[in-house]
């Protein structure tokens, strides 16, 4: 099956080359969406063999994912995997994620660090994610063990039905919302997340999480 790995990247000069090289060793179709980086992330990708898309302005991770998904669909992708650029994901997990789609068991496969392992996860982040799990259950009706995990796989039919309008980090909740609304078949699979100093710096703070929740509520009210 034609598998595309979509990697949104914003100011990831330190890690992007290593991440893309690791993915390219196992998958040939890698799409990196540089979201208006100012640190030379785009230039770091030269000569690697990955497809490079560039946002002229920083529009957020959700916007970058949607750009990458649209490109992959136009290229005939049958499975699209979303993958973070900060080096916290494990390439071997991609195979675990795409298997249920290949077997026809699910349209969306969500990675779960709590079914797998989350190395060096700070206690406050674990607590924040637990709260997010309960909020997701309340808002979208999905019973998940993890939420806001960037590693997920979408079948072509699911990707065609998921159109992200939340440009920034709220897209992760929006995807779950759409899965619930469109009644897409989903499963969770264990994945490993390795928290590094870099990925923790790039990740969301507790304040970001609160703002994100407010943003989601706003979107729901405006809908």
């Amino acid at each position, binding site marked *: 099956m034609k598998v595309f790995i979509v990697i949104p990247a914003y100011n990831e000069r330190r890690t992007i080359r290593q991440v893309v090289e690791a993915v390219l060793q196992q998958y040939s179709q890698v799409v990196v969406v540089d979201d208006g980086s100012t640190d030379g992330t785009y230039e770091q990708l030269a000569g690697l063999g990955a497809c490079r898309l*560039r*946002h*002229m*302005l920083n529009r957020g991770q959700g916007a970058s994912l949607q*750009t990458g998904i649209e490109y992959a669909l136009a290229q005939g992708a049958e499975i699209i995997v979303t993958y973070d650029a900060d080096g916290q994901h494990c390439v071997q997990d991609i195979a675990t994620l795409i298997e249920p789609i290949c077997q026809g068991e699910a349209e969306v496969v969500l990675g779960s660090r709590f079914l797998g392992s989350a190395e060096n996860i700070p206690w406050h982040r674990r607590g924040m994610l637990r709260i997010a799990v309960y909020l997701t259950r309340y808002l979208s009706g999905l019973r998940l063990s993890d939420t806001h995990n960037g590693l997920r796989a979408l079948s072509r039919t699911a990707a065609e039905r998921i159109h992200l309008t939340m440009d920034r980090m709220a897209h992760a909740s929006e995807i779950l919302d759409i899965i619930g609304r469109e009644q897409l078949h989903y499963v969770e699979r264990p994945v490993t997340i390795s928290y590094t100093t870099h990925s923790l710096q790039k990740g969301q703070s507790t304040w970001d999480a609160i703002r994100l929740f407010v943003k989601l509520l706003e979107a729901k009210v405006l809908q």
Partner: protein
Amino acid sequence: MIFQIAVLSYVFLTCWLASVQWRRRQISYRFFAVILMMHLPLVPITLQPDFTNHIANFFGIGRGADFLIYCAVLVIGRWLLALYQWNVKLESEITQLVRHLALSTVPPRQD
């Protein structure tokens, strides 16, 4: 008296400028109508301050000044919401434009 003259001058100037802009097609008819609706009621309110007391009493509010404050809060709230919605729409359009540019200028793969 100074207050009345100042307010009436402000209303007259604003409405006149709006009508000039409307005739030059610089603003829409709808926007022109909103400006008139927001400014013309100031004329009777300024000339006859007791006038608002009658309206307030009709709605069950004691004082005309309180009635004006309630109206202002409602108008400003609605205006802020409209501004927010406009901003969301604008952000979405910028994203679509940026995406269109990104997808139409994909460099060839360098294997």
